[in-house]
C-alpha cells in the first residue's frame, strides 16, 4: 500500500491536486482502520481493554504512513531532500510528544507511574496527527508554523491538508474529555480512552473537511467519489 502511494506522489507536482489530497487522506484513514483491525484480530485487544498497546499499534502503523506520505510534499524541495524531510519528521515526533503531553497534563491528565505509558502513547499518536506532518512539510520554517497554528490561516491545498486535520484531532480530543468526570462508571471514561476516541473521530472528520475546504471544486470531487 505504501509503495502505491509513493508512486502516486512521484507523478504530482508541488501544488498538489485535490484528487491527490483525497488519496493521501484515504490512505491515512485506511492506515487507522488497519491499525484497529490488527489490534482487534491479531492482538485481540482494543482501546478499552488495553489503551496503551492499542495506541502504540496505531502509532506503529500510522506514523510511517504519515511521514512517508507528507515528506513528498515538503515545501523547500530545492534545499531539502526526501530523506531529510523524513528525518525531520522523525525528529518532530518526540518534539510533538512533549508539546502534546504538556497540553494534556495542563488540561488535567492524571500524573503518576501507572499513567506514564498511556500518556506517552497517546501523545505519540497525537504527535503523528498534528506535529509530524507539519515537521515533514515545513521543517523549521517558523513563519509557516505560525501561520498554521497561531493564526490558523491555511493557504492552499497542502496547508489545508495539514492544518485542518491537526486542529480536528486537538478539538476532537478536547471534546472527548468531557464525559470523563461524569459518574456513569463506564470503562471508557478512563484517561486516555475517550480522549483518543475523540481525537481519532475529530481527525477523521477534519480530513473530509479539509478536502471540502481546499478547493471550491473539492466538494464536487468528494461527492462523486
Amino acid at each position, binding site marked *: 500500500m505504501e509503495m502505491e502511494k509513493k508512486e502516486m506522489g512521484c507523478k504530482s507536482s508541488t501544488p498538489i491536486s485535490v484528487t491527490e489530497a483525497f488519496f493521501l487522506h484515504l490512505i491515512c484513514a485506511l492506515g487507522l482502520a488497519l491499525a484497529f483491525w490488527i489490534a482487534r484480530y491479531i492482538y485481540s485487544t482494543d482501546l478499552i481493554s488495553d489503551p496503551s498497546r492499542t495506541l502504540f499499534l496505531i502509532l506503529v502503523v500510522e506514523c510511517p504512513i504519515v511521514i512517508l506520505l507528507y515528506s513528498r510534499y515538503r515545501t523547500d524541495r530545492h534545499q531539502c531532500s526526501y530523506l531529510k524531510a523524513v528525518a525531520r519528521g522523525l525528529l518532530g515526533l518526540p518534539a510533538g510528544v512533549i508539546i502534546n503531553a504538556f*497540553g494534556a497534563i495542563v488540561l488535567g491528565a492524571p500524573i503518576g507511574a501507572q499513567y506514564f505509558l498511556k500518556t506517552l502513547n497517546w501523545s505519540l499518536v497525537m504527535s503523528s496527527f498534528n506535529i509530524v506532518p507539519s515537521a515533514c512539510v515545513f521543517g523549521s520554517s517558523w*513563519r509557516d508554523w*505560525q501561520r498554521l*497554528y*497561531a493564526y*490558523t490561516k491555511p493557504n492552499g491545498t497542502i496547508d489545508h491538508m495539514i492544518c485542518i486535520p491537526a486542529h480536528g484531532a486537538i478539538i476532537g480530543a478536547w471534546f472527548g474529555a468531557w464525559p470523563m468526570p461524569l459518574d456513569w462508571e463506564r470503562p471508557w471514561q478512563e484517561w486516555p480512552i475517550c480522549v483518543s476516541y475523540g481525537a481519532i473521530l475529530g481527525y477523521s472528520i477534519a480530513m473530509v473537511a479539509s478536502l471540502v475546504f481546499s478547493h471550491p471544486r473539492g466538494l464536487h470531487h468528494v461527492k462523486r467519489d
Partner: protein
Amino acid sequence: MSSSLTCSRLTLFTVAAIAFQIIGLSFFVFGFFPVKPALSGDSGSESFRAPTCYSMGNESERDLPPYELQSLYQELSGIPPLFDRLILMVIDGLPAEFVLGKDERPPIKALMEAMPYTQSLLANGIAKGYHAKAAPPTVTMPRLKAMVSGAIGGFLDVAFNFNTQALLDDNLLGQFSKLGWKMVMCGDETWLKLFPGFFMRHDGVSSFFVKDTVEVDKNVSRHLSYELSKNDWSLLILHYLGLDHVGHTGGRNSPLMAPKLMEMDEVVKMIHAGAIMNPDDKKRTLLVVVSDHGMTENGNHGGSSYEETDSLLLFIGPKSHATDFPSIISNDVNQVDIAPTLALLFGVPIPKNNVGVMIPGVIDSLKDMQQLRALQLNSWQLLRLLQKQVPGFPCGSFPCDGFSGDQGYNSVDIMEKFCRLFLRAAVLHDSWISTELSRSDSREDKSGIIAAYYEFLINANQWLSHKATDKPSTVIVFGVMSMILSFLIFSTAIYSIIQEIYSGEKQLSNGIFTRHLDEGFSLYVIFILVISMGSSSMVEEEQYIWHYLISTLNMLLLRKTVQFFEKESTCSVLTLFSGRERVCIRASSIFTLLITGRILRGWHQGGVNWTHLPDISKWLEQSGTDLQLIQLTAVILTIILSLFSLSVLGRRMKIVLVVGFNFLMSGLLVLYHIVKYQHNASLPSSNAAISLAQIIYATLGVSTVGSVLAVPWIMPIQISKACSSHRNHKSAVSHPFKIGSQSQYPELRYSLYIIGWVYIGSWCLLQSLLQQPVNSVVTLLILMQIFASFLFFSQGMLQQKQWVEVAVLYYIGMAGHFALGNSNSLATVDVAGAFIGISNYSALFSGILMFIITYASPTLLLLSMVMYISIKNQDIAPSSQNVDSGYVLKRILGLPSLVPLTINSILLIAYTIVLILMRNHLFVWSVFSPKYLYACATTVCILIGVFIVATTVTYAYMVLALRKKYERLHE
C-alpha cells in the same frame, strides 16, 4: 453623547439592577425552599378522636393540672404508657454502620470490640437497633427538630443552624412538659436554644471548639452518676459531641474513634445497669440512643450520601423483646419515625406536623387491640395533616364516604388513593373490633390489619415528605422575572460601555475566528457552565469544568501570544531574550498560569465521585511530611512575593516603606501564631492563642482601613512637568510594573496600586491564619496566578479586550475556590477555622469567618481588581484640563465592576432555572439545592467585593481630584 451613558446614570442603573437582583433572589428563595406547611397549635385530647370537619377547641383542657391531663390522655387513648421515664442519649455524628453494620454484615471487628456492652445488649435482644435515615441537610439542629417533632425541616434550616432559635412547633418535649415532666439536659447547648426554660437542670457545652474531643464529653458524663441517683426527673437528655469532633478532626478512621466508642459504651453500660436494671427503682425507664447524623469518610456531614444519613436508633428497655417477630421486621426506618413512636410509648398525643410512622417492633409487648389502636392514632394524625395539605380533601369522621370509584386527576387522585387505603384499614379494624370477643386466636387477622395500616401510613409519609417540594408559582415567576430584568440592565450597561470604548477600534479586527478566539471562548465558558449545570454529576464535579475551561482559555491566550513572534523573521532564542522581552514575559506568565493552575487542580480531589483518588494534600498528610514547615515556607514566600511586587513601585517613596513595614509586622505575627499554636494539639483553644489571633485581626483591619483612607491624602502630587519629562524615558516601559509614566494621573494610579496591594496582602495573610495548614500553599499559588496574569495584562501590546481580562480574573477566582477544597456539597465548608480567635460564641462572627474562609479565592480576585485598574489604565489621558470626572471613573471602573456582576447574574439565573426544571429530580435536595445556596453566597460575595472596589476607587479619585483642585488654586 446621547447614546452613551453618563457616570451617574450608569451608577443609578447598576444600583437598580442590583436591587432587582436581590429582590428577585429573595422572592425566589423563599418561594422555592419549603416553608413548612404546618398546622398551628399543639395536639391535645382531640388527637385521640377521629378527625372531624371542625376543630373543637378544647379550652377546658388547657386548664387541667398535669396529672389530670395524663389520666385523660390515658383514658382516651386506651394505651397504657409502657414506660415512666425516658433517657435520650444523643451521640452526635455516630453512623449506624459502626454499631449495626451494613447490609446484614456486622461492623468491623475493632468497632465491635470497642462497644462490648452495647453489642451484648443487641445480641440478647434487649436492645433493638435501627438504621434511622436522616433527611438532608444532615446538620445537628434540623435533625434534632425532626426527632422531637417528626416534621421534615425546611432546607433553609441550614442557614439558621448557627442562629438557633426556640422550636415553637408542636413537639414531644412540649407535650411532655404539659404533663408536668421534669427534664434534665447535659450536652450540646443547641437543646437549650431550642427549648429555653424547659429544663430543670442543665449543663450546656458548646459545639464550637471542634478540636476538643475529650473535655466536651467529660462535661456531660460528670453529671451522670448524680442524675442517675436523683429520682426527680422524667426525661434526661444527654448529648455527646465528642464523636462528631473526632470525625471533624480525624475522619471516620481516626485513631481516636475506638476509644471514643468505648467511652460511649461505658455510658450505655452505666445507664443500663444503674437506671434500667436497678431493682430499687419503681419507675420503668427507656433508654433511647440516637445519633443525629452520620459522617463521610473525612468526617464531614451536611449532604445526603448514605454515610451521612445513616444515623443510629437504639431502644434499650428492661427486658428482651426479641420473642415475637425478630427477623421479619426490617430495621431501616426514618429519623422522623422517632417522634410518633415515643409519643405512643409514653401516651402523649403525636405532634401535629409529624410525618413519621410508628416504628414496627417496639410495641410488641402491648395487647393486640392496643397495637392496632396505636396505628389508628398514627393514621388519624397523618390524615389530619393530609386534610390540611390536599386542597378539597373531604373531612369528617369517615372522610372518604363520598368516594365510590370515579376517576379524577391530580389532587383528586391523591385524595382517592389515600381514602381507599385508609378506609380499607379502618373497615378491617372495625370489623375486627366487633368480632373480637367471639374469637380466640386472631393473629392472622391482626397482621392483615397492621399491613393495611402500614400501607396507608407509609404512602402518606412518602407523599407528605415529597409535598415539601410544592411551590407557589407566582412568587417564583416574579423572582425569576426580577432577576432577568436585572440581568438585562447589566448587559445593556456593559454593552454600551464596550461600544463606547471600542467604537474607534472596530476596523482593526480582521476575521472573527482568528483574532477573537479568546473573546469568543470567554463567552463560551459561560455557555458551557450553564449547560453543564443541568447534569447532577457535573454539578458535583464542577471543579473539573472550571479548571478545564480556564486552562483552555490560557492556552488560547498563549496561542495569541505566539502570534507576536512573527515580527522578526529570523527568530532565535537569543533575540527573544534580548529584544522581545515583552513576548517572553507574556509567554512565561502564561506558562506560570498553566502550571500553577494544574498544581491547584491536583491539590484537592474535590467533588463527590472521585474524592478517593490520590491528591497532593492527601499525599502530604499521609507521607508524614512536616506540614508546619510547608505552611511556614508558603507564608514566608507569600510575604516575599507580596513585598517584591510592592518594591517595583520604587523604594524611595515613604508611603511604600510604611505600608511595607506594616505588612511585614502583620506577617511576622501570623508566622508567630503558626509556629506557636496551630500545630500544637495540646492547647488548641488557649487564651493566648485567641488573643494573638485577635491582635492579628486588629492589626490587619487597622492597617488596611488606615492605608485605604490615608494613602490618597498623603500621596505626593506630581506636577505635570515631571510627568512629561517621564514620558521621554521610554526605557521605563520595559519594566513590567513600571506604571504611571504615561498617565495624566500618576498619583491616582500609584495610590490605587498601593491600596490594591494592601487589600491583596492583608487578605492573603488573613487566609494563611484561617485556612487549614495544607491550604497555605494554595493561597500562595493563587497569589502567583494573580501576579502572573497582571504581568500578562500589563504588556499592553495586544488589542486585548478589557472585559476578557476581567473575565479571566473572575474565572481564576472561581477555579481557586474549588482548589481550596470547596465543592458544591455543604459538607466541605470548613467549620474548624471559623472559631479561630473567638473567645465566646457568636453566631455573627463565626458566620463571617466561615464566609471569609469559604469565599477566600473569589474575594481575593475581586479585591485584586483595584490593583488591576491601576496597572491597566495607562492610557486614560484626557486631553483637556476640565475633564469630566464621571468620564474617567466610568472608563476605569465600569468594566471591572460590571463584568463580574453580569457573569454572576447569568450564572445565577441559569441555576435558578435549572433548579426549577429539576424540582422533581431525585437529587434536588442533595445536589441542586446546596449548589443553589452556594450560588446565592457567591452572589453576596460578588456584591460585597464589587462594592469595596467601586467605593475604594471612587474615594481615591475624589480625594486626589480635590487635592489637585486645591493645589491649582494655590499655584
